[in-house]
C-alpha cells in the first residue's frame, strides 16, 4: 500500500505568486517597453460641466518630441461610445459616452485631449501647451436636487437627470406579501435614511495600457480585471474585428472592481497606436486615477422596517437614489440592482419592496467597487436591526436570532425570490460570540456608562450574507445584463506528465495560480509543483468571463473540476487499452489507474505520454487527454458570517478606536485557508475604511477635494486592530467544490459592524445615527448635540499636500 498523500485542498500553502510579486520580479503593464514605443498623456477637464468653446492644439504639436495631439473632434468618427452592458430597464436613458469629450465635459477629470510623444515627460510637458476654453454650465451634484422639477440637466438631450427606476416588489413577484399591508399591520415602523458615501477603489497599481499595432493582431496589454470582456468591447466600440484583437492582462496589482471597466484611456490608446502604426503606452498618475477612474457606492437609502412588538420582522421597504455620475460605464446602472436582492439579508419577513432611482450628476461615473450593491444593502439592514433592537429594548443578537433563517430550513427561498442553498447562522454566531467575549464586553460597557467614563465602549453586530459566484446566465439575462455568467477552463496534459491549466478567470492579486494548482493536483493526482496555471492572455486563454463578484472559485473552479473529470474519463479509456481490460474495470485514485482487484496499474503521466505519442490508441480515440469545460451555475452562492466589533469612543474628541474585531465567516469549503485569511483581512480593512475614513468629497463647483491620499484617507496596519478570524464550513450545495466565494465578504460585513458599534457606544447620549465616514468631528458633534450628525464642514482639503499653495512652497 502506498501512503495516501495529504489532500491539497484545505492546505494553507504559501502562494506560488508571492515571490515574484513581492520582489517585483514580474512584468506589470507599465514595466513593458517595446521598440519604437510612444507615450500618451491626457489633458483633463478642470471643470465639472462646460461646453468646450475652443481647443487649440497647435502650440502643443510644436513641442519637442510630440508626434500627435488629438481632441475629441479628431477621433469622433472612430471612438464610438463607451459600452454600458447593463441597461437595467427598457426605458433607461443612456447618454452618448465619448472617450475624449467632443463638445461638452460632464465631470472634472474627463479627458478632452491626448498627446502622443517620444517620451512620457515630453507628453506631459506638451499638455500644458494645449489651450482650452470652457463655457461653464450649471453643475448638478445633489441627487435630490437633480430630480426636482426644473433642475439643471447633466445631459439636456435626455430631458431628465433620471436614468432609470428599477423596482422589485414581493407581491408582484409572488415571493411575498404587499409591503403596505405589512407596514399597516406592524406594531413598530422604523424609518431611517442612510448615506453611502462615494468611495474611490484605490487599487495599488495605477491603470496602465500598452497597445502594439505592429502584428496581424493588435495586442493590448492592460492592467485590467477583464481581458476577455475588454477584447469583445474594444471590437464592439471600434469596429475592429475581434479576431484582430489580443488582450493580455499581465500581473495586475489589485482592482476591487475598479478595473472591471472598459476605459476611455484603453480606447484612445488603442486608436492612437493603430493610427500611428507604433506601440503606444499610457500609465496614469495616482491623481488621475482618483479623479477619473470610476468611483463606487454613492447612494441615499431611505429604509422602512416594519415589525411586530415581539420583534418579528414583517416587512422592509427600500427607496434608493443611486448616483451614476456623468456617464454609464460598463455595469454602472446595475450596481444598485446587485443589492436589490440582499436588503432582506438572512431574515424572514412577509413583504419586501425595493425601488431604486438612478440619477445623473456631474461627477466621475460610479461602477463596481468591492461588494457592488451588496455592502450598501447589508449596511442598511444591519443598521436597521440594531435600531429595531434599541427601539424594542432587545439584545441585537437575540433579535437577529429570532428572525434569521434556521439552519434546518435550508434550502430557503427568500422574500426577494432567491433560494439560499445552505448556511448555518447559529453556528457562526455562537463561535463569534465566544471568541469575542460578548458578555464580558457588555459588562464593561455597563460599568463605563455607570461611571460616566469619557471613553465609552460600543459593540457592533453584523450578521451578513451575500449573493456571489456571479452568475447564472439565465438570471443575468432576466436582469437585462448583456453577457453570461459562465466560466471556462481547460487542461493540457503535456508529454512529460506536467499539467497546464488554462482558466478564464483573471486574477489580479487573489492567488488563483496557487488555489487552482491545489484543486488540479488533488483531482488528477499529480504533484502541486507540476501544475502551471495560465491566465489573462486571450491568445492562451481563449474563453472566459474574468474575475469579479467573488466568482472565480465557485464558477471558474467548478469549470476546472469538470475539465479534470473529463481528462480522467479519457485517461481511463486509454489505460484500459494499455492494461488490456475493460474500461469499467479501471479505478482512478491519486493519479493511479488500476485494474480493479489486481496490482496491474499505470499512472496519469504515463497515460498522458501514451496519448501524446499516439502509437497505440484504442479505436476512434483522439491523440489527446486534453479537456475543457464551461460551467454555468444554476444558482448564486451565499457566504455568510458574523462579525463583531468593539470600539472605544473618546467622547471628548470623537475619536474612535477599534478595540477588538472578531469575524467568523462561512465561505463554504476552503481550498487554501491562508488565501481566505488574506482576503478576509483585506476585505475587513476596506469595510472599516468606509465606516471611518474614506470619502470622495466634491466642492460646490464639482471639484474633487479629496484627490490625494493626504485627504482621501486609507488606513494602514497602524490604524487597524489585530483581527480575530475564524470559520465555519457549510459547503455550498450548488457546485462540486462546495465553495461560496470570499473576495467581497469582509468588505460587506465590516462596515455596519463598525458603525453599529459606534452608535451603540453613544446611544445613551441620545445618538441614533452618525453619517459615514464617522470622523472624529461628526462623532463629537453627535455626542454633544445628542442628535444625528449629518454633513461636513465644507469641501476644503485638510492639511498637508492637498492644501499646498504653489505660490508659497518650500525654500
Amino acid at each position, binding site marked *: 500500500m502506498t501512503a495516501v498523500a495529504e489532500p491539497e485542498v484545505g492546505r494553507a500553502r504559501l502562494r506560488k505568486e508571492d515571490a515574484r510579486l513581492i520582489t517585483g520580479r514580474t512584468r506589470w503593464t507599465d514595466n513593458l517597453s517595446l521598440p519604437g514605443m510612444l507615450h500618451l498623456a491626457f489633458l483633463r477637464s478642470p471643470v465639472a460641466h462646460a461646453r468646450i468653446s475652443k481647443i487649440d492644439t497647435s502650440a502643443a504639436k510644436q513641442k519637442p518630441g510630440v508626434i500627435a495631439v488629438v481632441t475629441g473632434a479628431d477621433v469622433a468618427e472612430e471612438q464610438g461610445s463607451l459600452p454600458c452592458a447593463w441597461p437595467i430597464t427598457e426605458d433607461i436613458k443612456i447618454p452618448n459616452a465619448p472617450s475624449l469629450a467632443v463638445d461638452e465635459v460632464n465631470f472634472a477629470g474627463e479627458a478632452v485631449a491626448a498627446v502622443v510623444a517620444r517620451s*512620457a515627460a515630453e507628453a506631459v510637458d506638451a499638455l500644458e501647451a494645449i489651450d482650452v476654453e470652457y463655457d461653464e454650465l450649471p453643475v448638478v451634484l445633489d441627487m435630490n436636487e437633480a430630480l426636482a422639477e426644473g433642475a439643471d440637466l447633466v445631459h439636456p438631450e435626455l430631458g431628465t437627470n433620471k436614468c432609470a427606476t428599477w423596482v422589485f416588489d414581493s407581491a408582484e413577484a409572488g415571493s411575498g406579501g404587499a409591503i403596505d399591508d405589512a407596514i399597516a399591520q406592524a406594531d413598530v415602523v422604523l424609518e431611517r435614511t442612510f448615506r453611502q458615501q462615494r468611495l474611490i477603489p484605490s487599487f495599488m497599481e495605477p491603470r496602465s495600457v500598452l497597445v502594439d499595432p505592429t502584428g496581424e493582431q493588435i495586442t493590448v496589454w492592460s492592467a485590467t480585471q477583464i481581458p476577455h470582456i475588454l477584447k469583445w468591447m474594444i471590437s464592439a466600440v471600434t469596429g475592429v474585428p475581434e479576431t484582430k484583437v489580443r488582450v493580455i492582462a499581465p500581473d495586475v496589482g489589485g482592482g476591487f472592481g475598479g478595473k472591471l471597466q472598459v476605459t476611455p484611456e484603453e480606447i484612445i490608446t488603442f486608436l492612437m497606436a493603430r493610427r500611428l502604426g507604433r506601440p503606444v503606452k499610457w500609465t496614469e498618475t495616482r491623481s488621475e486615477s482618483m479623479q477619473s477612474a470610476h468611483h463606487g457606492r454613492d447612494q441615499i437609502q431611505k429604509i422602512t422596517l416594519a415589525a411586530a412588538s415581539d420583534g418579528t420582522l414583517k416587512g422592509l421597504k427600500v427607496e434608493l437614489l443611486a448616483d451614476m455620475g456623468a456617464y454609464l460605464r460598463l455595469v454602472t446602472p446595475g450596481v444598485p440592482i446587485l443589492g436589490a436582492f440582499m436588503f432582506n439579508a438572512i431574515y424572514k419577513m412577509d413583504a419586501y419592496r425595493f425601488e431604486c432611482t438612478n440619477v445623473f450628476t456631474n461627477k466621475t461615473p460610479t461602477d463596481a467597487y468591492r461588494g457592488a450593491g451588496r455592502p450598501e444593502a447589508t449596511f442598511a439592514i444591519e443598521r436597521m436591526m440594531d435600531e429595531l433592537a434599541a427601539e424594542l429594548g432587545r439584545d441585537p443578537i437575540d433579535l437577529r436570532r429570532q428572525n434569521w433563517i434556521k439552519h434546518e430550513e435550508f434550502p430557503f427561498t427568500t422574500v426577494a425570490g432567491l433560494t439560499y442553498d445552505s448556511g448555518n447562522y447559529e453556528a457562526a454566531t455562537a463561535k463569534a460570540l465566544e471568541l469575542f467575549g460578548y458578555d464580558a464586553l457588555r459588562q464593561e460597557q455597563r460599568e463605563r456608562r455607570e461611571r460616566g467614563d469619557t471613553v465609552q465602549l460600543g459593540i457592533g453586530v453584523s450578521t451578513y450574507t451575500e449573493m456571489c459566484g456571479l452568475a447564472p446566465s439565465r438570471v443575468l439575462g432576466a436582469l437585462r445584463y448583456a453577457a453570461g455568467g459562465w466560466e471556462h477552463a481547460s487542461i493540457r496534459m503535456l508529454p512529460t506528465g506536467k499539467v497546464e491549466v488554462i482558466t478564464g478567470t483573471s486574477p489580479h492579486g487573489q492567488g488563483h495560480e496557487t488555489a487552482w494548482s491545489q484543486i488540479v493536483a488533488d483531482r488528477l493526482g499529480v504533484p502541486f509543483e507540476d501544475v502551471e496555471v495560465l491566465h489573462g492572455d486571450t491568445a492562451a486563454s481563449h474563453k472566459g468571463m474574468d474575475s469579479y463578484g467573488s466568482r472565480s472559485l465557485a464558477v471558474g473552479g467548478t469549470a476546472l473540476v469538470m475539465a479534470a473529470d473529463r481528462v480522467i474519463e479519457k485517461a481511463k479509456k486509454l489505460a484500459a487499452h494499455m492494461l488490456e481490460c475493460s474500461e469499467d474495470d479501471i479505478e482512478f485514485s491519486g493519479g493511479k489507474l488500476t485494474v480493479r482487484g489486481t496490482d496491474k496499474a499505470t499512472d496519469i503521466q504515463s497515460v498522458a505520454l501514451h496519448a501524446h505519442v499516439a502509437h497505440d490508441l484504442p479505436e476512434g480515440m483522439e491523440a489527446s487527454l486534453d479537456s475543457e469545460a464551461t460551467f454555468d451555475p444554476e444558482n448564486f452562492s451565499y457566504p455568510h458570517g458574523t462579525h463583531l466589533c468593539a470600539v472605544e469612543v473618546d467622547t471628548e474628541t470623537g475619536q474612535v478606536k477599534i478595540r477588538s474585531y472578531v469575524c467568523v465567516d462561512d465561505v463554504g469549503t476552503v481550498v487554501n485557508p491562508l488565501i481566505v485569511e488574506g482576503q478576509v483581512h483585506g476585505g475587513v480593512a476596506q469595510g472599516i475604511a468606509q465606516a471611518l475614513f474614506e470619502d470622495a468629497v466634491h466642492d460646490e463647483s464639482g471639484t474633487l477635494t479629496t484627490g490625494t491620499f493626504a485627504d482621501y*484617507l486609507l488606513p494602514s496596519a497602524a490604524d487597524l486592530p489585530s483581527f480575530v478570524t475564524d470559520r465555519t464550513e457549510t459547503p455550498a450545495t450548488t457546485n462540486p467544490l462546495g465553495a461560496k466565494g470570499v473576495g467581497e465578504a469582509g468588505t460587506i460585513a465590516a462596515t455596519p459592524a463598525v458603525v453599529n458599534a459606534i452608535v451603540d457606544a453613544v446611544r445613551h447620549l441620545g445618538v441614533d445615527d452618525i453619517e459615514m465616514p464617522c470622523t472624529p*468631528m461628526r462623532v463629537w458633534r453627535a455626542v454633544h448635540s445628542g442628535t444625528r450628525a449629518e454633513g461636513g464642514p465644507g469641501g476644503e482639503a*485638510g492639511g498637508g499636500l492637498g492644501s499646498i499653495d*504653489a505660490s508659497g512652497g518650500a*525654500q
Partner: protein
Amino acid sequence: MIPAAFDYVVPATVDDAVRELHDAGDEAKVLAGGQSLLPVLRMRLAAPSKIVDIGRITELRGVRDAGDHIVIGATTPHHEVQHNQLVREHALLLALATETVADPQVRHLGTFGGALAHADPAGDLLAPALALDCTFVVAGMDGRHEVPASEFFVDYFTTALRPGELLLEVRVPKYTGWRAHYEKFNRVAQAWSICGVAAAVRVDNGTIAEARVGLTNMSSVPVRARGVEEALVGQQASPEVIKAAAARAVDGTLPTADGNADAEYREHLAKVLTERAVTAACS
C-alpha cells in the same frame, strides 16, 4: 507624475549652495530629503528652473553640543533627531514630536530643517521649535544671520527665508531635566495633524516652575500658548489647575476649517489636547 524640467546641482559647500541659489533668484528650490518638495514637483504645483540638492554638504547634517544649547543641522533626518541622545536629554519635546512625523520611511529621508523651512502649519515640528525658542541660522550672499523662531514662521508655507537664502541649522536651548509631551490628533497614522499640542514643563517639587506650550495647525503659523503657560507657572500640577489653564489654549489662535475640522471643533480639540499634553508632561 513627471515634474517639469529643471537644472539639478549638487554643491559640496554652503558657499557654493548659496551662490547657486543667488544666481537663480527666486527660480530655485532647495532639495534636502525631498519628502515635501518631490510631491509638489511631481504634481506640478511648482516648477522651479533649478534644484539645489544640499544633501552632500556634510556640515549641515548631525547634532552637536554647543555649551548652553545644542545644534541640529538642517539636513539631519528625522530618524536621527528622534533617536539622538543629545536631543533626548536636552530637548525631549523635539524628539517626541519627531516620533509622530509621518511614517518610518519618511522619517529616514525627511529632514529636520526641511520640515521647518517647508512651514506646513500642520507639520509637527513647528510648534515645538517655537515653544522651545529655537534660533534659526540662515546663510545668504551677505553672510550668516540668526532668526528667532518667533519671527521665522510668517504664513502658510512661508518663512522669513528670502530668495537665495539657506537654512543651515537650528540652535535649541538646553531644557535639561524638563518633561515633555507631544499630543498629536489625526485620523490615520501617517496623516498630518488636525491639531497638535507641544508641551514642556519643569516641575519642581510638584510645582510647575516653568512651562512652554505650542500649538500645531491652529493658525497659519504655529502658535505659542502663552495664556496656558502663564496659568500653569507657579501652580501645583493638579488636574484642576491644568484643566483651567488648558481653557486658555485658544487665545491667539486663528483656526481654519477643512474637511477634518471646522474652527469650533479645532478650538475644542486645542483645549482637550492641551489638557492631555500638559497632564502627560507633568506625570
